[in-house]
């Protein structure tokens, strides 16, 4: 128990935790949106994120990005990466809905069958990216049917620098970018769900599907919309991840997805603002925990948090529900 280290650098650990949690929060939105409307856990959402990181990698490789490009180019590459990741992730999410969920919804299958299908699909995606797309960065073309499940590095777009210091806590430019863009994306989504016509449709279906259908809301379209929205958020998370950590792998989705799900449950699944709160909270708890014990216990902490939350407050910190007027 390393209390000295934790309390000696409490500010630093909090900042690290916040920037980590921002990525969890963005992925958590996908779980929350789908759960809020369909009441099911989209287990394959972690792979939506994974596909996003590969899209970023693909675009950067295609444009021959090198380490530390000049500022103008860097912004261009980030925007291109964001577009590619959002398209790829949104498309994957939509495909998952089409292939795995729609046929089951027609048959009114029990929720566990949805979960099993999603697990199967997630395995398929992981393996497809492990087997078919190895080493996109190294070779010019993906060498089909090679064997690569190893980590693929990405170019550094923005060099990590300390922007400013507050009382011994140094805050880097990347941390600021990650945190601010995550919050902006979430604010946009919140506005979209609460203030626009489409968002009203989403909330209506979440509250009561039958009545929404009677009022002329196209349910299928709402469901597609939420999958795409969740996918876009995961795509944004994928870009931020690529920028901050600079690597990807076909299996990165699994643990990250579980943590994002934990964040969603922690904040109250089905609650958009809850996802933000849950993500940031989980990020901080994880960094504190890793400092207190040791960094190889980090993953255990997230799971323990999940079990404890589900036992004592299964509705999360802010309560679940996408349908309620303000959430």
């Amino acid at each position, binding site marked *: 128990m390393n209390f000295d280290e934790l309390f000696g650098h409490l500010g630093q650990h909090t900042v690290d935790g916040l920037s980590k949690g921002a990525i969890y929060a963005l992925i958590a939105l996908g779980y929350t949106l789908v759960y809020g409307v369909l009441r099911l856990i989209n287990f394959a959402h972690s792979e939506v994120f994974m596909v996003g990181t590969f899209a970023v990698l693909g675009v950067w490789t295609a444009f021959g990005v090198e380490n530390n490009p000049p500022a103008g180019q860097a912004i261009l590459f980030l925007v291109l990466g964001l577009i590619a990741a959002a398209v790829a992730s949104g498309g994957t999410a939509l495909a998952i809905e089409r292939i795995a969920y729609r046929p089951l919804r027609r048959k009114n299958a029990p929720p566990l069958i949805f979960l099993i299908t999603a697990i199967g699909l997630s395995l398929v995606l992981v393996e497809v990216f492990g087997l078919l797309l190895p080493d996109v960065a190294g070779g010019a073309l993906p060498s089909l049917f090679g064997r690569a499940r190893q980590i693929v590095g990405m170019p550094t777009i923005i060099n990590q620098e300390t922007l400013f210091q507050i009382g011994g806590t140094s805050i880097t430019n990347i941390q600021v970018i990650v945190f601010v863009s995550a919050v902006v994306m979430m604010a946009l989504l919140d506005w979209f769900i609460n203030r626009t016509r489409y968002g009203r449709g989403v909330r209506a279906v979440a509250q009561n599907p039958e009545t929404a259908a009677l009022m002329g809301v196209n349910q299928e379209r709402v469901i597609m919309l939420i999958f795409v929205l969740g996918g876009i958020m995961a795509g944004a998370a994928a870009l931020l991840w690529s920028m901050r950590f600079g690597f990807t792998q076909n299996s990165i989705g699994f643990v990250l997805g*579980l943590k994002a799900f934990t964040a969603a449950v922690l904040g109250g699944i089905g609650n958009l603002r809850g996802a933000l709160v849950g993500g940031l909270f989980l990020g901080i708890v994880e960094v504190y925990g890793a400092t207190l014990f040791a960094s190889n216990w980090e993953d255990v902490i997230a799971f323990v948090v999940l079990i404890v939350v589900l036992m004592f407050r299964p509705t999360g910190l802010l309560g679940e529900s996408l349908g309620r007027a303000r959430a």
Partner: protein
Amino acid sequence: MIDKIRTADRRRVSLLTSVGDRFRALPKWQRGLALLALVAFLYYLPLLGIPGLTWLRTDSIAGGNNWAGVLFVCAIYVLVAIGLNVVVGLAGLLDLGYIGFFAIGAYSVALFGSVNSPVVKWIQREFDLPETWAVTWAICLFIAIVLTLISGVLLGWPTLRLRGDYLAIVTLGFGEIIRIVARNSNGLTNGPQGISAIPGPEGPPSAENQVFGLIDAKPWYWLAITAVLLMVFAVRRLEHSRVGRAWLAVREDEDAAAVMGVYPFKFKLWAFAIGAALGGLSGFLFASRNAFIDPTQFNVNLSILFVAMVVVGGSGNMVGVSLGAVLLAYLPERFREIADYRWLAFGLAMVLVMILRPQGLIPSRRRTRELKDRAAEAEEAPAHV
């Protein structure tokens, strides 16, 4: 194309049911004889030399694995599938952390039975025992089953009140926690180095062992298949008892079961604990045969493979889940070309089976009827999600 597959599938199922019905209509002594023949064949399998069937052996291909060894793994997986079937198939609880119980079973024989384990060394120091002392294999079996039963209850007690899909995620977390704890606790489990010299029925592995050696896997297979047959019998009795009926009732409609006086939590906990003990037993046998375990052998992917065996085979039906287990363990060994794509194939199989026939390859009759009911309800009220 899909229609063709569907018709072929329907024909296959009706054939299966008619064979099943005919078998049930036979006189008792004939059924007994048929079962006896099947059991005899299972014991004969490692020696398989019937002309025309030898291509089934995995050592019939270049670089193939020892046939009896593969059979042993198949038998272990069948044991796992039978245990998981109690949880998933009978009680309807999706347990994604079954590998955790498997690991606990494996680690109990390793920690108490091997002279290289920190636990045994500690006991030796505390009680002034000789350095060759370790807990006997048979007592380890007892420890493994008790420990997994307890851990099943400990995990089930707080989590079984949760909704089904939450339970699945929490158990997934549990499986991962067990692996990480095994990896990180150097003082307890030797961490990533693993534990060697895990004993078999004849004591620690050595060249002097007459029957259960490291080379010849046949006795191990016979041991495992005996365990499988015993457990099939036990679970079958359980399934047709009051407990089994309670499980089915809880699976199909928890509220209705509660109204009829079946306390769902109690029976779910029973299913969880019994399933856990069976997982522990299979982990125990696996570790004894391997003589060495480390945390990487208990990856979460295996947990998903276990679930795939049960749902692809046909959850709720013991023949179905055993078939699923044998297929998933055997095919990658015999057909090496697909070994690399096996996870892809497992994933695809899960998706396709769940979408096209959620009751599995060899369905349980009750489960089929239940799913049909739900589909009919969906047609009556199309607006309902």
